[in-house]
């Protein structure tokens, strides 16, 4: 039975533990599921997301790989073609660039090229986007890159409930799913709904969630910045501005209907993301809104709040000013509302 409101259970669960439990349950449920990646087994995971899994499931199901992204991503894809259901971890998605050919050309396109003869049930997961002080080569957001490609599903959870339900859904999905986590969120605890306790709790891929109802402006975001939007909304509420905050949950296929429905109610739209502005998630939302019925309901152009269009710097003051802050969201909302 679906509940419209979440019942708070007694203990909060961190995003890390939610991911861990989701994988544990899916490994138990289906023998074909296995995890491979660097340090996932004996090290318990570079970010401890796979803690305890190797001890429980052993070498066959939890596989440490050498530092060979292109090779092991290809091996994971091949194993999916031959009947297994791999979870391929990239230590961060920055390293997935080395393997991107396997993700796109071997995984994403194969079902189409084979006219349905060959499916590729695989999950590519790992931390995506900015971290803290790891500089340019370790901070890129890949949501836009992967979401560009037909044949892939791209999922971006924000909180623990998202992480649990979406990862279970991704593992059960018969298609290649890129699962973008966020390292800064791993340690953040969230209360979980009663319903999420079930071992069969899945959040449908392709459906956004309205985290906060509002009437004046729609804020659309994904991953960590959903939290920033909610924080901004709390501040704005004190000034009488009620924001509707939408958590995309899935980047591709994007739930445009939920965004359009909200915009037709609020007449204003602000997108918030950590990635770069050009050709990004916000850019796509703008285009989609313009092509649909919601355009005529806009009282102002859509505003995009994004990462700064630069490689990520190292120094804290520079890094802090390279990604959207809550004050940027507040400022953008007010500009959009012309207040």
């Amino acid at each position, binding site marked *: 039975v679906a509940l419209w409101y979440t019942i708070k259970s007694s203990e909060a669960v961190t995003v890390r533990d939610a991911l861990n439990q989701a994988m544990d349950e899916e490994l138990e449920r289906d023998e074909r599921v*296995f995890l491979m990646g660097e340090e996932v087994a004996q090290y318990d995971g570079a970010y401890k997301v796979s803690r305890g899994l190797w001890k429980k499931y052993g070498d066959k199901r939890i596989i440490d790989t050498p530092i060979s992204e292109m090779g092991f991503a*290809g091996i994971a894809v*091949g194993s999916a073609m031959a009947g297994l259901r791999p979870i391929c971890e990239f230590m961060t998605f920055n390293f997935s660039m080395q393997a991107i050919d396997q993700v796109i050309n071997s995984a994403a396109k194969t079902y189409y*090229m084979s006219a*349905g003869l060959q499916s590729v049930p695989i999950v590519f997961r790992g931390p995506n986007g900015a971290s803290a002080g790891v500089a340019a080569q370790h901070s890129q957001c890949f949501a836009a890159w992967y979401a560009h490609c037909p*044949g892939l599903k791209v999922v971006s959870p924000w909180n623990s409930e998202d992480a649990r339900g979406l990862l279970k859904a991704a593992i059960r999905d018969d298609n290649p799913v890129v699962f973008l986590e966020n390292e800064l969120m791993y340690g953040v605890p969230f209360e979980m709904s009663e319903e999420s306790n079930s071992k069969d709790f899945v959040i449908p891929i392709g459906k956004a969630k309205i985290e906060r109802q509002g009437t004046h402006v729609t804020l659309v975001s994904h991953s960590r910045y959903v939290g920033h939007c909610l924080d901004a909304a709390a501040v704005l509420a004190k000034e009488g501005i009620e924001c509707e905050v939408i958590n995309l949950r899935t980047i591709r296929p994007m739930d445009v209907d939920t965004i359009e429905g909200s915009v037709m109610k609020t007449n204003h739209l602000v997108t918030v993301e950590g990635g770069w502005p050009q050709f990004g998630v916000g850019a796509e939302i703008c285009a989609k809104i313009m092509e649909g019925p919601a355009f005529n309901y806009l009282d102002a152009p859509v505003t995009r709040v994004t990462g700064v269009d630069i490689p990520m710097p190292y120094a804290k003051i520079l890094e802090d000013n390279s990604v959207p802050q809550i004050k940027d969201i507040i400022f953008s909302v007010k500009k959009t509302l012309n207040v």
Partner: protein
Amino acid sequence: MRSALSFLSNALSRISGSAGAQTVSELLIDLSEYASLMTPSELTEAPPTCAASLVSPAVASQPLAEFNAQVTFDLKPCELYLLETGPAHTTQLTRKEGLQLYQTMQTLRRLELKADQLYKQKVVRGFCHLYDGQEACAAGIEAAISRSDHVITAYRAHGFTYTRGVSLKQIFTELTGRRGGVAKGKGGSMHMYAPHFYGGNGIVGAQVPLGAGIALACQYQGNQQVCVTLYGDGAANQGQVFEAFNMASLWKLPVIFVCENNRYGMGTPVERSAASTSYYTRGHFIPGIRVDGMDVLCVREATRFAADHCRAEKGPILMELQTYRYHGHSMSDPGISYRSREEILEVRSKSDPISLLRERMLSNNMASAEEFKEVDTMIRREVEEAAQFSCSDPEPPLSELCDHIYSNEPPMEVRGTHPWSKLRSIS
């Protein structure tokens, strides 16, 4: 012109004993075969009479008892790397096996020649990488494994597509991009699939880790199956190949890595692209065998050895097949700017895999020239029929344009070229 060609074709078929050429390209091939293979003694033979009906190779005009049912052949020993012993030095070939191998290779040959013709007629588009010359590789490997084993290769894939069970009709119709194609026209030459055959892969070298992954699945599932993972001399220099070698070795995956060394990576001869052209040693810690890829019996025996190695859980093994392609890299490449016509003709005359097998069987009285001719005629007919079908089959319906994006998914909308074009995609 046409009558002159028919005259030449008929003359050649009377002299050489093979069924008449259908096209200019076939005629040129027959001419070169004639020029290279005929010896004075053969020229004085009376031309064989044509069979009244097209019969299957099992029914011969000579009584079966007159043929040798089985012959043992000596094989050229393989060069070995990190191995104490290698494939057997002799092999037994039964008459039935021999005729089957011949039929397979001849079908592959005619399939590729017909593809060439269709490409020149512009009914096949894009890339078309032909396998003629390399028939012994596909036929020999297939003869040593079973359908429950797995095969993955690169883009020169028509040979394995056929040996893995896709019909000529489905192959040609995929090439011509019609709805009856094995991939419904969505894939084309480089993307054909069958059970336990994973294509057809366009990105050079990407299929090698995929193949190791398929082998991982075999090991994981404990099913004793192996994965034959093919790549060319060009792909042998890809980094991901070495990543796959490392992991396959570490985890003892049941993968037979096969380097089909046809001496040229597109237009670049091996000496100009590889610091070491001993491809069978480039697995470093992986045992290797170098095999005469023009001798189908060598390939078969070597593959048996390799498969046994993998099934005994000894880990991966590497087989380099020294082979040759008659065509250029693809139909866009005439194939003569980086190699000489003399070289091509020399390989044709001395090492053609189909001729080698036929001559072996003829000189060991395993079959008659007539039988081979009957097989040839039957194959030409099959290929012609399949090609005709492929030219007349309708194109895929536009309503299916967006199908097969996702597997096991309810129907969804896909954006067309503009916002008012809302297309439907079903799984």
